[in-house]
């Protein structure tokens, strides 16, 4: 009497016969894998990839430039800087003031006005140059204690114009009937009403733009270091697993000792030694994750090389190289793809961690880790500085991890039983 074989669910036998797409769709019915898990995370990942590829299209401002007032809360309308001139002077905008000599412009000390007027003057000069002229708008900023004092200076003819915040001007301008407000001097970003949906930081940079450009840095670090450790870990794992013996033991010893080291600390040590640059950050993170690939690939190679079809290939005269390339390697790839996706998430997190600690990236890089570190200084009065970069890191890591786990479940449902 033979014993009845253990019952195998129908889906297990069907699993081998269908393609990837149907597998994803049927996975839920068969073994309750959440295919929407993969769907949602793929959409998220795809969105982030698009952001990383063409941040310029989505970002309203230049992430490195000061484009607005400092520490503006999300959604808050920026205070426009307005130009005030004597009534009837015929001046309608800053460009009308161009002349041979330096123009004296009055501002109030300690307000963003002086910077705004200098920037505006620079823009005017640039525009003139672009039109082919050789004129320049040269400005001398005259500082006053109060707005009222500045306006009196203008009335007295000490200055040619005054620049100040439009709301304050609206309050005090009634006392100076001879003067008129002719319009804003701010950059196009603020004036065109593009605004700052996520606010600005303490340098007057747009948080949203930095977030969007930061995607590129995060992805560059994540993908480049994951690829680099893949490029090192995959061949090492293949060789160790396939050759076996002493080679395997020595390599595994080295990899295990790397693996035993806490990841972030190792990365810190490597960047500290290599010095700050984006490439060094990538290398440091790659070194940390090489053992992950090595272990997976080695294990797979160990099991694949015992398969009958490898023996069959040898019986047909295949060389070791052929077997590695055509038999072991393609059979190892699916699990490597899954590891890769989870690994990108890890690498992004480690990258953010490194720049949060001030290691690695040049300080003006639009990077989430740097933004988080800077935002920390203003955590009391500007919640938006750390909230949004934090959410960005979290959702990217979550998306990648979800995608990896979801794919793993679909590719290899048998793991669930363990």
């Amino acid at each position, binding site marked *: 009497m033979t014993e009845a074989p253990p019952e195998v669910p129908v889906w297990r036998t069907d699993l081998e016969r269908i393609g990837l797409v149907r597998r994803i769709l049927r996975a839920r019915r068969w073994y309750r894998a959440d295919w929407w898990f993969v769907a949602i995370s793929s959409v998220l990942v795809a969105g982030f990839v698009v952001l990383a590829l063409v941040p310029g299209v989505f970002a309203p401002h230049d992430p490195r430039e000061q484009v607005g007032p400092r520490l503006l809360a999300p959604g808050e309308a920026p205070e426009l800087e307005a130009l005030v001139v004597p009534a009837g002077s015929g001046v309608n905008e800053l460009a009308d003031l161009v002349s041979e000599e330096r123009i004296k412009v009055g501002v109030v000390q300690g307000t963003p006005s002086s910077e705004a007027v200098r920037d505006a003057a620079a823009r005017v000069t640039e525009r003139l140059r672009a039109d082919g002229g050789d004129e320049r708008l040269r400005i001398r900023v005259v500082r006053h204690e109060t707005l009222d004092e500045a306006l009196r200076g203008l009335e007295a003819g000490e200055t040619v114009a005054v620049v100040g915040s439009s709301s304050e001007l609206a309050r005090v301008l009634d006392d100076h009937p001879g003067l008129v407000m002719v319009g804003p001097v701010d950059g196009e970003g603020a004036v065109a009403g593009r605004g700052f949906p996520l606010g600005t930081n303490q340098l007057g940079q747009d948080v949203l733009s930095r977030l969007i450009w930061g995607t590129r840095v995060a992805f560059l670090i994540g993908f480049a270091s994951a690829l680099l450790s893949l490029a090192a870990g995959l061949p090492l794992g293949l060789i160790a697993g396939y050759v076996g013996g002493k080679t395997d033991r020595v390599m595994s010893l080295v990899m295990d000792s790397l693996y035993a080291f806490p990841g972030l600390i190792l990365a810190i040590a490597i960047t500290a030694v290599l010095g700050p640059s984006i490439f060094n950050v990538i290398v440091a993170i790659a070194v940390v994750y090489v053992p992950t690939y090595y272990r997976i690939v080695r294990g797979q190679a160990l099991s694949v090389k015992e398969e009958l079809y490898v023996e069959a290939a*040898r*019986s*047909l005269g*295949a060389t070791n190289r*052929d077997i590695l390339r*055509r*038999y072991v390697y393609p059979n190892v790839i699916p699990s490597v793809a899954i590891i890769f996706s989870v690994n990108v998430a890890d690498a992004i997190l480690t990258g953010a961690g490194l720049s949060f600690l001030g290691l690695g990236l040049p300080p003006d890089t639009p990077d989430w880790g740097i933004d988080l570190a800077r935002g920390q200084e203003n955590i009391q009065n500007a919640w938006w500085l750390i909230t949004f970069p934090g959410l960005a890191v979290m959702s990217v890591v979550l998306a990648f991890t979800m995608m990896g786990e979801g794919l793993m479940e679909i590719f290899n449902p048998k793991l669930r039983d363990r």
Partner: protein
Amino acid sequence: MSEVIYSIRGLSVEYATRSGAVRAVDGVDLDIRRGEILGLVGESGCGKSTLGKAMMRMITPPGRIVTGELWFEGQDLMQLSERKMRAIRGGRIGMVFQDPMTSLNPVQRIVDHLTETIRTHEPSVTEAAARARAEELVERLGIRRERLDDYPHQLSGGMRQRVMISLALALRAGLVIADEPTTSLDVIVEAKFLDLLRELRDEFDLTIVLITHNIGVVAEVADRVAVMYAGRLAELGDVLEVFGEPRHPYTQGLLQAVPNIELDGAELYQMQGSPPSLLDPPPGCRFHPRCPEAMPICSAETPAFQSVSGEHLAACWLYQEHPEVVADA
């Protein structure tokens, strides 16, 4: 008597295990003749698969060939470099494995298996020419040429086994070692496959070593049969002679244990005991602890593997001169 194509002399194979060396094949001598189908039978673990692999020098650590000569086409394969050996594998000697379900690379199309095998051995053949050869070959084996672009999982077990054969034939191998090729096939597919083997033998002038534990299969297709027990050959001869008049008590027991239509309700013969551990095999004839006709000498001396009548060989003291026989007489 036809020409010998492959000659095994004193072959011993050992596997290193934690508890010591296991001698899976122990001093086997065997001549394989051109154009024959030689059935190699024996129970599980008797060393028949190891013998098949050793014939292609495919024993991998922890196993190793301890001693022996493997004469094929005028050269001793044991003396060849690994590189020359690779040219022989697949090129001159092909192998078909037990489980067709797992003996093809799941991530490679059928056609790639064939063209790569051809081009590994004949690098000058173009991809297109190799494909043409593959198409011709599989059509001969009864697989439509469109199926070449399928992956192994899209083929049935019988088809895969035919693909395995075509791989062995792709380079006109003269000798094919088939290691339990029909074990995982159902009876009808098995019968068709065996017919095919015989046809191919005639058409391609093949020599086939058929390793199996199925005595019925051997009786059906083989010309000669070799019976193996515990790493040694017990009996060898023409299939009709061996099965018609088995000499070795092991072969006799084996044949009686096969159910047949004439049994008619009688109890099926059961051989006593179980195969010995190869870690610590019994001295003398390895079958003596289970042998119904064991004599004192059987546990002391190993019988020679010699002729009992013509080309019918057996390793048994019953048919050989020894002191006890002399004393009886």
